[in-house]
């Protein structure tokens, strides 16, 4: 019996020593972790043909190079397009993690369905910076390494409405084209599942009402952020309500440009069209006097925030002070009104 007990004691002793050794070596491993000289960022975009997202993509690529040059840390970007499929995006996230990405920047396809992405990232310990399409709060609260970069949709909509209010106060005849005392408008909406679409629609109109602009809604429709869909809708409205539409309020620039395409085809170029995003084609249209105005987020700051957040997560550093996060999670990008000079200074 004694002999057996001795063997048991020795065995337990050996196991305990092994555990202690393992603990010591793993702790040393943490201390010896070398400073990172390169970071790898996996970026998944909800679609590749969205003008605003493409603008953001290009600026992020430029910012990454700037960051690489200034910090000496090699930045590798893996950029993938999810082609509007959440399933594809989930697979891309899996691939990013298996390729050893230090951080993920995700522009979700379905903002209500990000739980799988978060699960995978949490399991792998890879922080996630969401952008442009805001995941629901319950998902964002699941982990302290989840961030969101975007714009305050209500602020965007208020600025969009304000641009018409200001113009109406200065020159009512530039907005109320037929002089009947009422501004008749149509509304082009983005995806119904996108949080910004609903808020932009509601608050742009509310701001017009608050600003005492007499408005009347003729009709509205969902064009899913797309130029071609907006163009088709506008063409239909122009034939259904001839000589009635005075203002087109669009949830983004691409749809505003689609409306302009239809207006040009119908030779109704005096109708005012307003957009949101400040995309490159949108700004060109403002310059040419085709688009009355747009609300533009400061894309430089937007992309800087995405990259700085991603880099600081990857390197385990604090985020630079200039990027203050609401609730330690959300970064809201500043916005401004850009309006055509022809209307502004007639």
């Amino acid at each position, binding site marked *: 019996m004694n002999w057996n007990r001795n063997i048991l004691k020795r065995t337990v002793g050996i196991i305990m020593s092994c555990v202690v050794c393992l603990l010591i070596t793993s702790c040393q491993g943490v201390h010896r972790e070398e400073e990172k000289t390169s970071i790898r960022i996996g970026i998944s975009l909800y679609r590749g043909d969205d003008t605003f997202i*493409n603008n953001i993509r290009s600026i992020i690529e430029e910012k990454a190079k700037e960051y690489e*040059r200034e910090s000496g840390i090699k930045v590798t970007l*893996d950029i*993938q397009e999810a082609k509007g499929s959440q399933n594809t995006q989930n697979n891309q996230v899996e691939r990013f993690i298996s390729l050893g990405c230090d951080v993920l920047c995700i522009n979700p396809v379905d903002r209500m369905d990000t739980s799988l992405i978060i699960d995978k990232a949490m399991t792998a310990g890879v922080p996630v910076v969401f952008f442009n399409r805001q995941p629901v709060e319950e998902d964002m609260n699941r982990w302290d390494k989840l961030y969101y970069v975007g714009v305050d949709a209500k602020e965007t909509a208020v600025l969009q409405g304000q641009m018409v209010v200001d113009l109406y106060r200065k020159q009512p005849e530039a907005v109320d084209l037929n002089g009947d005392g009422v501004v008749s408008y149509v509304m082009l909406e983005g995806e119904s599942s996108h949080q910004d679409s609903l808020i932009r629609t509601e608050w742009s109109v509310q701001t017009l009402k608050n600003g005492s602009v007499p408005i009347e809604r003729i009709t509205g429709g969902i064009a899913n952020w797309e130029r071609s869909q907006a163009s088709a809708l506008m063409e239909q409205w122009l034939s259904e309500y001839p000589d009635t539409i005075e203002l087109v309020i669009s949830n983004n620039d691409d749809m505003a440009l689609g409306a302009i395409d239809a207006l040009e085809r119908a030779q109704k170029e005096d109708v005012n069209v307003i957009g949101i995003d400040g995309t490159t084609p949108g700004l060109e249209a403002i*310059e040419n006097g085709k688009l009355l105005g747009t609300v533009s987020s400061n894309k430089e700051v937007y992309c800087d925030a995405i990259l700085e957040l991603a880099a600081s997560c990857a390197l385990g550093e604090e985020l630079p002070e200039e990027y203050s996060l609401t609730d330690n999670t959300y970064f809201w990008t500043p916005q401004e009104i850009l309006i055509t000079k022809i209307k502004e200074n007639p």
Partner: protein
Amino acid sequence: MIGKSGRVLIVVYIVCLVVLFLMCSTDLIIREPEREIYQIAVIIEDVRSDNYSNFRKGMDQAAAEFNADVQLITLYEKLDAQEQMELINREQQDGADALIVVPVEEEQIAERQMTIPVILLRAGVAEASGAGNVIIDYEKMGERLAREILEEQPVGNPVYVLRDSAVQSDMDRLFLEGVKAAFVEEGGRVQMIMRNEEDRFWMMLEKTGMDESEKVVILAENPEILTEAAGVLAGSEAVSAAVSGLYGRGTTIPILNYLDRGLITGICVTDEFSLGYYSVREAVRALEGAGSVPTVMESHYIKKEDLRNPAYEKMLFPIE
């Protein structure tokens, strides 16, 4: 009480469980064949990758098929040969298994002793170098486009070539050589407008009348200039009315949109999806020690009406 045979059975059962566990969850008994992931770096000659969107799709397709991890790297300065060499060295040191390079200075890369295979995406059919070559004959492409212009446009209309005033890439240079050669052969001539003279050129066109005989033909040296020129035409009816045709090369989305809107008359393109695919395939072949045969890409002339042609549609708007 469990008998002796019962104990033996339990032990056998436990041993079986352990063996099954080892078989399913570890490599101890059945060793899964290790699939090596090839690290391939693609270093282009430009600061932006906008002109490489279809190329990227082909590259990603091949990466998934051939088990490769492919990174596309751009330069800080366009056509900076020294920086490209530095990036080649950096990627080699960082453990890339193979490189795909759109060379700024082809000779410089060819002369350098490389420890890993380098696939060159070359702009002309000169002597092959590197571990593999994928070739786009830009000279031939220029010739092809020039002949299409000569066929489509009235004989008397002057042809202006918009070209970069800074350093020319091999692609631009060979493309223009092809254009000039074809015009000379047909007894025509082209006039060069440098980028820094473009504003004056557009102003001159604004004053030009809409008479058919006074109209001009414009040919852009590269996709960037073509996009800018189409943008000018889109923004000014007077300039647009003075131009009887705008031509160039490239397959970016803005170029295809301008072609669809009729602002660009015709473009010469290569199948860039296949180009991306073949380059990664060549790199993997080189890594696996297979022999390499230079792949020469064909060029195609595309007009607005061809955009809906299924064969071209597949090439211009590839789905991964």
